[in-house]
């Protein structure tokens, strides 16, 4: 016991000495020199980012649905090229809580995959200047195709998705599209075809219900899932102007006819009883499992659905992603237009110890070889052009690729979700109420508009425009 006490007292004494520094530390100016000093090497054709071969590299990966093996194999490539480098790899789930103090302390890792429900607020990071400008990476030659720059190997929109204040600051590794999923097997067996218009959707829903199947289910525990087709429908009706007005927090943006019409459409879906009973309380895994079991015909989700459902999808189910049906005959975008955005955000912290190594790691990760391996194992489209060429794709991933091809240049995405997280929460809550028939479409628009106005006039929130 006495030994314990002595050790403790010794620790306590050192601790006592440290106390006065603490309050200065949490909120210090953040200027403690260049951590990267001495960690850069000479640039050359083979080493365009100036990596110092033996500088250690710390990589933090979000270990979610895709695991972190893909990131580790990129690390192996890195150490093959820079034999002296020691890589510290961490696969985590709660990126935000784990890394937040390290950003404050100016001791962040060199590469962060800032993804998952508990990620860091990117907008806060950007406005605090905690993220490295990725332009040198984008202008560097691609890792396995030196004739091309990295920026020319990415799918359309990927660079935009990671651009804040006109500076590319994050690079997203996967390419996600959103839509409404169904089983080709079920639809072929019943002779149903996926509807192109909302009127056709309602008609089909009546048929499906008559067949004893619930037409729709959704991941009620997380109402953002049903937001996506609803806002996607509005985007098709109102076109890019509607999306811009919403993202730029313009007055009455949420009361645009396109948005009201879409909200009415989903209120009608709920009102007619086309949503499976109990959906409102189901988690994403539960709702998706019910759908895989054939209890419901449609479910909204992003293109990650197939890999998430790998374990519970019956053989021959053949899931297919359909684009959101057109609400009106005068929609500004074609029915094939697709809500698409890249995700799985990689960034190099501004205070990284080995930023050149961090950028080089991303150059390796975004190489065609690495992306191809990822597509083959993760069943998800990477953000790299041609990564799936020549691969035999599963039903779901194939339908995603076809949808991307059919959409051509007509892809769209809202940015308010990443820019203003509290607004996203307000929209989710309101939509949950709407599809549970507790508020009307007009009330929905009122509520969301009020929340958007609140953010617009809150001077403490950093604003972005597009």
């Amino acid at each position, binding site marked *: 016991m006495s030994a*314990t006490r002595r050790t403790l007292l010794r620790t306590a004494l050192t*601790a006592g000495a440290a106390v006065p520094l603490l309050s200065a*530390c949490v909120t210090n100016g953040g200027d403690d020199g260049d951590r990267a000093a001495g960690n850069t090497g000479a640039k050359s054709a083979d080493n365009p980012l100036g990596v110092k071969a033996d500088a250690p590299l710390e990589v933090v990966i979000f270990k979610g649905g895709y695991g972190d093996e893909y990131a580790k194999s990129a690390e192996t490539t890195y150490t093959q090229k820079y034999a002296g480098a020691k890589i510290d790899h961490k*696969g985590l789930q*709660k990126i935000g*809580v*784990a890394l937040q103090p390290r950003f404050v*302390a100016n001791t962040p890792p060199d590469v962060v995959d800032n993804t998952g429900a508990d990620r860091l607020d990117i907008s806060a990071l950007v406005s605090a200047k905690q993220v490295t400008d990725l332009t040198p990476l984008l202008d560097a030659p691609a890792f396995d195709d030196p004739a091309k720059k990295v920026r020319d190997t990415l799918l359309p929109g990927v660079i935009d998705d990671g651009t804040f204040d006109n500076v590319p600051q994050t690079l997203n590794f996967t390419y996600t599209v959103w839509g409404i999923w169904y089983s080709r097997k079920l639809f072929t067996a019943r002779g149903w075809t996926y509807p192109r218009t909302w009127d056709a959707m309602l008609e089909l829903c009546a048929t499906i219900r008559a067949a004893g199947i619930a037409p729709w289910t959704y991941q009620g525990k997380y109402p953002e899932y049903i937001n996506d087709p609803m806002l996607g429908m509005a985007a098709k009706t109102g076109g890019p102007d509607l999306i811009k007005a919403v993202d730029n927090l313009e007055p009455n943006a949420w009361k645009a006819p396109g948005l009201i019409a879409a909200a009415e459409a989903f209120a009608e879906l709920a009102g007619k009883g086309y949503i499976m009973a109990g959906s409102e309380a189901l988690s994403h*895994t539960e709702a998706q499992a019910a759908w895989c079991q054939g209890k419901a015909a449609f479910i909204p989700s992003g293109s990650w659905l197939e890999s998430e459902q790998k374990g*519970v999808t019956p053989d021959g189910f053949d899931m297919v992603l359909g684009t959101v049906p057109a609400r009106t005959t005068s929609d500004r975008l074609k029915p094939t237009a697709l809500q698409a955005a890249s995700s799985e955000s990689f960034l190099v912290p501004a205070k990284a110890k080995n930023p050149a190594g961090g950028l080089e790691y991303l150059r390796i990760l975004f190489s065609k070889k690495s992306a191809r391996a990822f597509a083959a194992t993760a069943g998800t489209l990477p953000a790299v052009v041609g990564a799936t060429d020549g691969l035999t794709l599963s039903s779901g991933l194939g339908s995603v690729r076809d949808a991307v091809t059919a959409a051509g240049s007509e892809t769209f995405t809202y940015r308010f979700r990443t820019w203003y997280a509290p607004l996203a929460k307000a929209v989710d809550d309101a939509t949950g109420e709407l599809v549970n028939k507790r508020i009307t479409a007009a009330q929905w628009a009122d509520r969301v508009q009020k929340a958007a106005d609140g953010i617009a006039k809150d001077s403490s929130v950093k604003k972005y425009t597009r």
Partner: protein
Amino acid sequence: MTLSLSLSRSRRVPSPPRSFRSFPVHLAMLAWAVVTALPLLWAVVSSFKTDNEILNDPWSLPSTPQAGNWARAWNEASIGRYFLNSLIVVGGALLLTMFLGALVAYALARYEFRGNRLIYYTFVAAMFFPVFLALVPLFFVVQQLGLLGTYQGLILVYAAYAVPFTVFFLHAFFRSLPGEVAEAAFMDGCSHGAVFFRVMLPMARPGLVAVAIFNFLGLWNQYLLPLVLNPDPDRYVLAQGLAALSVSQGYRSDWSGLFAGLTIAMLPVLIAYVAFQRHIRSGMTAGAVK
């Protein structure tokens, strides 16, 4: 309370057959036992089922017990290693907490001096702080001491956060102990330290056991502190390992694996409790007699 009224009354009826008299009481007791045990039992049974069985027949027994679920949870969630980490950290913190907590509680309960109440309330007030408020500043404290991600760091922090409750609980306990024995010991020439270690601490043993159990349960299930202070997956404690398992379940629909992980984490504590429950209850009994 109406329920307890009618049930208790029924006991007073002069001479009905005994089985009838206690029947409603038994029923109520049994009902609560079922409500308590059923979800746990269900988790254990589900850990042996396939995902499809869990979805389609949540009620049935597994057609063939799936030992693979357990193997998967054990390997992927590294439950074994996390279990050991938890044991080291919680064991160390528990010893430290009990030692420091008992000293403080005793000193405050049995000695009058200026600032006594102030110190007491300084400790007790900390029970009311929401822990996540301290998380980020705490990270810097631990980091500056060079203790981040170390067993020692976690042990010190765990102990610091468990001492307030220990003081609160033992303070009342030490107050209730008779003073005569201590006085006799002083007469015999014992020092203050000797009185505490040789006389008062043994007398307080039952209370110490009780509060040690509370602390063990609280620390064993601690999740927020290690989340921030213990970022290295190799040093994860059990609660972190389970959370990781639960998150990855959300991306793979692996219910059976999740149930197996829950069961693996649950069983050792249940077994330890059943084995030691006599001591625990007698400790609590003594602890409650004030």
